[in-house]
């Protein structure tokens, strides 16, 4: 229950089981827990279900995990990207399952998991192929689709700063899925750029309270990388 500060990324992802459902934060590179994904690749768990907005880009990160045939299924809103060739090839070969979920419904289904909501009626997607086979109901004259929670065994998220109690703040649009995923998984691991002492984050500005965070890993490399990118551009 107390948040643990991990010495390295391997410790941060230790214990992830074969067959686990892993929520992976980030939207593009913003908020993407790169070091944790790399550590998961090394860690070895397979037969995974990955829930993330995208399905990997280029040859690194999620794409590298996919390339190692470690992922059975991807649940995401937007698998197809200019450089999603690893996913594309696996999908076309019938070697990976795909569940496409509208982006807002993806977020809301994880929120439902975290908030103890059993299911909800959602107007998104009504009359489209993504609603096929789903229960529908007209409420107040408007058609809705019944959507169920998406729960993770693990969430890997990227945040900006943590305190030693696991309270998190994010930075700009890198916030995206992190706070929602943090509520929706049994084991929540946050990669951050720095850890401050308790009291070092203003209680009014905490976005993810420490109650949701099990492990924190400070990725110095990421911090350097971001600074370099910012300087390089």
């Amino acid at each position, binding site marked *: 229950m107390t948040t643990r500060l991990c010495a390295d990324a391997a410790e941060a992802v230790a214990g992830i089981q074969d067959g686990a459902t892993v929520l992976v934060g980030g939207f593009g590179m913003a908020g993407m827990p790169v070091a944790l994904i790399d550590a998961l690749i090394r860690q070895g768990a397979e037969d995974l279900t990955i829930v993330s907005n995208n399905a990997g880009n280029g040859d690194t990160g999620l794409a590298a995990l996919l390339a190692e045939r470690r992922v059975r299924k991807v649940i995401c809103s937007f698998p197809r990207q200019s450089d999603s060739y690893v996913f594309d090839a696996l999908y076309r070969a019938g070697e990976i399952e795909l569940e496409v979920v*509208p*982006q*807002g419904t993806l977020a809301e289904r994880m929120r439902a998991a975290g908030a103890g909501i059993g299911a909800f009626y959602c107007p998104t997607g009504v009359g489209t*192929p993504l609603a096929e086979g789903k229960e529908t109901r007209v409420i107040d004259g408007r058609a809705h689709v019944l959507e169920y929670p998406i729960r993770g065994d693990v969430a890997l998220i990227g945040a900006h700063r943590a305190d030693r109690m696991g309270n998190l703040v994010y930075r700009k*649009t890198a916030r995206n899925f992190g706070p929602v995923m943090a509520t929706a998984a049994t084991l929540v691991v946050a990669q951050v750029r720095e850890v401050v002492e308790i009291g070092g984050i203003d209680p009014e500005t905490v976005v993810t309270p420490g109650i949701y965070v099990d492990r924190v890993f400070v990725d110095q490399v990421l911090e350097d990388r971001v600074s370099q990118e*910012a300087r390089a551009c």
Partner: protein
Amino acid sequence: MLTKHQMAALVAADIPRGAFVNLGIGLPTLVADHLAADSGVVLHTENGMLNMGPAAHGEQIDPDLTNAGKVPVTELPGASYFHHADSFAMMRGGHLDICVLGGFQVSAAGDLANWHTGEPDAIPAVGGAMDLAIGARRVFVMMTLFTKTGEPKLVPRCTYPLTGLACVDRVYTDHAVFELGARGVVVRETFGMGVEELAERLEVPLSGFASAEPGRDEA
């Protein structure tokens, strides 16, 4: 016949002062370039921000700050950040005044198809398109009126997989602006091609100009 930028300018001129607006990926992002500096229009990006500024260049680029197309952007004074569930709650809850989307096809009844070509080999990817289509108070679609091979994209019934049912309020094209609603498809403005010629090339019944003066919206 309008250029893309002329279409974008037309949409921009129709956005009321102070409106909260989401501009979809692709053609709609051009609209931002044509909003008057004093328009007070607040841009929403579904990856968690209100009052998004223009694209970032050079030293402004911050990997933590992008739009929904993952392009680095800037922040305007009075901005706010929120997470994905809150961002789509804002959208789904009807708090955005307008969203502008690209389109593959729009039907006379306002159905939108803009996410999937339906080809067997195509990998489905919806992003936030369905959420935007049903969430904003008014949905404007911006698209060329015809495909490259001359097929109309304003159609009696969409043949591509749908994004949303009866959700489009207005269609901005290079040849005309159409208003969709209880009165059917009303031609609001034309650019070169007359209403008769439009009626000939499209398979949807058209009504004439919505008003004597096809002017801009009132704020």
